[in-house]
Every structure is written in C-alpha cells, then in structure tokens.
C-alpha cells in the first residue's frame, strides 16, 4: 500500500499534537459523544450520521434540552456512547414513544433514531400516523437498505437488483416486490412540515447532512409540524462489498432510487 520502494517516503508524525504552533480546528469526537469506542463494522455509515446528528444538536445549543428515542438495530449499540437523555424503544415503536414524550415535554427537542428495518418494515404505521398528526418531533431514518444487525437481510427499502442474504440473486420486483420510498410518502402527509433525504458517502454530502438535520430540528422548534430526515448510510457487510467500495455503492445503487435532496420545506413540496 505504501509508495514505491525506491522513492523516499515523507511521513508526518500523527501520533501526537504538532509541535509547530497550530490551532485545533476539528475535535476527534463531538462533545455529546462520551467515547469513540464502538464495535460497528469497518466502513459503517451509521457512526458518521450520528456525528452529524450530535453536532447539529450542539450547534443549536440543545445538548441539555434533547431527548432521543432510539429504535433497534446496529445503531442501538451507539446509545451507550450518546451523552443525551435517551429512551430505548421497541422495534418500530419509536415515533409513538416520541409522541408521548413530546406531548408531556413540549419544550424539549425530541427526535427518533431508527433504521430502515425498524421504521419502514416494523414501524411504518407509527411514523405515518405520527407525521399525519403533525407531531412536533423529528424522526431520523438511517437507511442502508438492509437489516444490518442480522447480517444483511432485505428490508422494505432494499432496491430492485440489490443482493442481500434473502435475495442472493438480487431483489426481484415480481417476487420480492418494490422498495418503499418513505420520505416521499411522509412528505405527502398534511402534518409534515419538513422532509429530506441525504447521505454520508462523501465529505460534502456529510456536511450537507448536518445542515439538513439542523433544518429539521429548527422546524420542530418553530412548532410548525412534523420533520423527517432520511440519511443513506453504508453497510459494506450487509451488501457484501469491500468497505472502500461502500460509498460508491451507496451513491449509485441506493442513491439512484432513494433520491437525495429536500422534498418538503416549510410545509410545501419542493419541485425537483
């Protein structure tokens, strides 16, 4: 992997802070993350999305006014690192739990953190009705198109042709049916004020994810209705692709079906 043998390698010391006068412009981890020690797979997009979520909350100064309601999936293991008051919900039920919490604590920022299996399979009724009621909560969907925790099985967002443990030859529309484009369904509901899709496949898109999360949280703070953010994340393990090819797979395979961008802003559909 390193340079050619006959060329002199210039390697900068990176095991400690630089001696030359410098300013730290990027913290290893956000303030609301207790530790970076987690066991999610190499190349997983979920910790990347989590960083953006925590940084969006920090930017809004809401670290001590937020309650997270977490679904069940690989990201559940990250809850021990999140230094935010949390409620662990059952698979699919987070939007309902968030509804009850927000109704009792209307002054707090309430968000859910769920996967595509948790939300679009197990809990689709919950998120649709929570949106239709216009609950002032933000539901965050980490969509990698598979059940990651069980090792990569088809979910409701798996795209046609995508190989998973139970679609080894690729998802077939005639046999396995079609993927559900949940952000578009949510955006069509009267109670939804903000709905957007973003991804974590490159640095620019990751920064955009933080901005989109922030706009969703600001929508909640304005009390103008339900807000929804779908974040496409890599799952090389579940996709059977090498970690380095995860981002491109995300962009080309999932991103071509679950199209990125803001779908509804301030209660109005965005003409794409």
């Amino acid at each position, binding site marked *: 992997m390193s340079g050619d043998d006959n060329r002199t390698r210039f390697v900068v010391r990176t095991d400690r802070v630089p001696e030359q006068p410098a300013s730290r412009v990027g913290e290893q981890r956000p303030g609301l993350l*207790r530790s970076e020690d987690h066991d999610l797979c190499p190349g997983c997009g979920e910790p990347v999305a989590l960083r953006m979520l925590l940084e969006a909350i920090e930017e809004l100064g809401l670290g001590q006014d937020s*309650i997270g*309601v977490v679904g069940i999936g690989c990201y559940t293991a990250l809850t021990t690192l999140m230094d935010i008051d949390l409620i*662990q919900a059952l698979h699919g*039920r987070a939007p*309902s739990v968030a*509804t009850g919490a927000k109704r*009792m604590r209307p002054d707090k920022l309430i968000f859910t953190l769920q996967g595509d299996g948790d939300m679009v399979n197990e809990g689709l009724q919950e998120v649709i009705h929570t949106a239709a009621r216009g609950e002032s909560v933000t539901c965050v969907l980490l969509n990698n198109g598979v059940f990651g925790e069980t090792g990569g099985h088809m979910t409701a967002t798996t795209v046609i042709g995508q190989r998973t443990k139970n679609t080894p030859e690729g998802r077939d529309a005639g046999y396995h049916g079609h993927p559900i484009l949940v952000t578009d369904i949510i955006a069509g509901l009267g109670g939804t004020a903000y709905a957007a899709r973003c991804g974590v496949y490159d640095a620019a898109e990751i920064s955009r994810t933080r901005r989109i999360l922030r706009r969703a949280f600001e929508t909640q703070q304005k009390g103008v209705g339900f807000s929804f953010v779908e974040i496409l994340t890599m799952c090389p393990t579940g996709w059977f692709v090498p970690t380095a090819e995860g981002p491109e797979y995300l962009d080309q395979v999932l991103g071509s079906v679950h199209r990125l961008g803001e779908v509804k802003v301030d209660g109005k559909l965005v003409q794409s």
Partner: protein
Amino acid sequence: MTRRLMEGSEAIAEAAVVAGCRFFAGYPMTPFTELLEGMARRLPAEGGVCINAESELEAIGMAWGALATGARAATGSTGQGLALMQESLSELTRSELPLVLFNMARGQADYYQATRGGGHGDYRHIVLAPIDIGEAVALTQLAFDLADRWRNPVQIYGDYLLAHTSEAVAVERLDFAPLPTKDWAVDGSLGGSGASRNINPIGMTKGSKGIEPESFWKRLQAKHDEIAAAEARYESEHTEDAELLVVAFGTVARFVRYVVAGLRAEGVKVGWFRPITLWPFPAQALAEAAAGAARVAVLEQNAGQMIDDVRLAILGAAPVIPIGGISSDEAGFGIGPLLDVDVIRDRIEAGLAGREVPR
C-alpha cells in the same frame, strides 16, 4: 361528601384525573370505549393530553414515552386489545415504568392474561380487581400510587358491568405517603454531563459497551418478590365456621356476597373470599380462611383460570371445585346468565352438597 350518579367509566376517568394522570392514549373497543371518551373529555381541561391512537400498539408506545418523561400516564383496552400490547407491556415492565393499565374486560377470561401476562420473559404486574364503582374509584387512585412507588405497571381489571352501569359515588382525592422525586425520568437535563440517562429494558448503561441483562433482570425479580410479599389484598366474610368457602373476584364477587348473606340469614354455614389483588394472589390469607371448610368452591366467569391459584393456595388441604363457567351474552360482551342471583344460589348449594356443576 356529595355523591353523584355516575357511569363506571366516567367515575374511573375522574378518579384517574384526580390521581394526577395527565396522559392517556387509547383505541376504541367495547366495553373500554367509554373510559377513553371520559379521558378525552376530562384531560384537556386539566392541562393533560388524550390521544386517539391509530392502534393499541401505538397507544402503549405513546404511554411509554409519556411515562419516561415522568408524567403519570395510562392506557387500556379490553382483553383483545391488550393482547396487541403484550410485547410492550413486558418490556415496559423491565424499563421500570409506572404504567396504569385498564382492562375493561369482556367477562373474566382474561385472568391468565392479567396475572401471567401475554408478553415474553419474566415479569409481573400488580392487578387490582374492583368489586364495584365505589371501590374502582379508590383502586384507580391506589394504582397510580403503587405504580410510582414500585416503578412497575399496575392493572385495573374491570368489566362490562363496571363500565356501563351507574352508581352514586363521590370521587374524592385520596392521599398516600410521599413518593421520591422521579430523578430517573428523562427531561434532557443530563445531556453532555457524562451522566445522561438511558431508560431501557436490557441493562444498557452509558459508557459500557456491553449490555448486562442478567444482573439487571435479577434485580427486577427481587423487586417483584418484594411486591408479592407486600401488596396482596383481599376481603372475606363468614369464614370462621364456614363449611363451604366460595372464592370469586370483581363483579361476580358482588353477586356472591349478596347470595351468601341471604344463605347465612337462613343459617347456612357458607363464607366467601375475594382477592382484591389478582397478583400478588393472597394465597396465605386464602389458606387461613379455608382452614375449617370442608370444601372450597371457585365461582368465576370463564373456563377455569383463577382456580389454579386457589388450588396452589389450598395445596390439597380441602377439595377445590369449580362452580362457575363460561357465560356471555350473544355479543360476547360478558353479561351472561351466570350473573344472576338465583343461578348463583343454585351453584353454591350444589357446592355445599358436593354435586357436579355444569360448566
């Protein structure tokens, strides 16, 4: 103490509000619907919230969220609706959330569901079975206290008669011993402090990667053992010289009490015993009450469920015979021919004579 003629459902809703319940979510289903209506009418006026949930699955989920923030919250249905809630009822118990759950049942066939639970794993709920509307008003308030005191769900086992008949009752706020503040409840305040909360049912603790279900669940078991030792409640009468002890709960016990009083007036040596808590079942008290009796007769409106607990309490000291049975109206709402003084008198007399009873 001014009493007012109130339907059972309305009185129970009023009692919950008086007890400080500020969140309710429910899905209409007979005979629970009127309780939901009562909550929908009363809660907003008290600054509370009542949501018509899209299904029972979401109703219990919403209550879960409200409870986790420290509010007094409740939900309910009839047995069939509670069947949809069982996964949450089980895990919510392990999250140590003080839920109050109303089963306005269709008869008494939900005894197993209430006392053994339809959810997975080891867990217990305190189950209170009121005999009439007056007691339901008191037990509803007790339920909210016990739920907070033990951080464990408490059920009220009502039924069609309790829900849809009316009595003159005074709904007055009962006082209980002070409770500790709910520091465990999430309000966001500990975010970024390094000690933020995570209300969860499997022993996840902030900062440690692994989960610790075993020690966490064993602590809950110890709590349930404590509850079992402390919270059993019952009522009995004429047991000292009773040859036959009749055991019944809820509405059926009300009929039994009336019939036994009549028989006693005629010099018949019969007594009655009713568990007020279906769990913890008052086994020791029942064994003592049945000590002198030649026979114990169980009168319940189902195929025979509480009889298991009665037999466990008596442990063979006397024969335990069923004199109740399945009994329902043509709609299946649990108001059947068994709820009739003359029918119950025949059943008790058969019990006295040791005759078989059609079930």
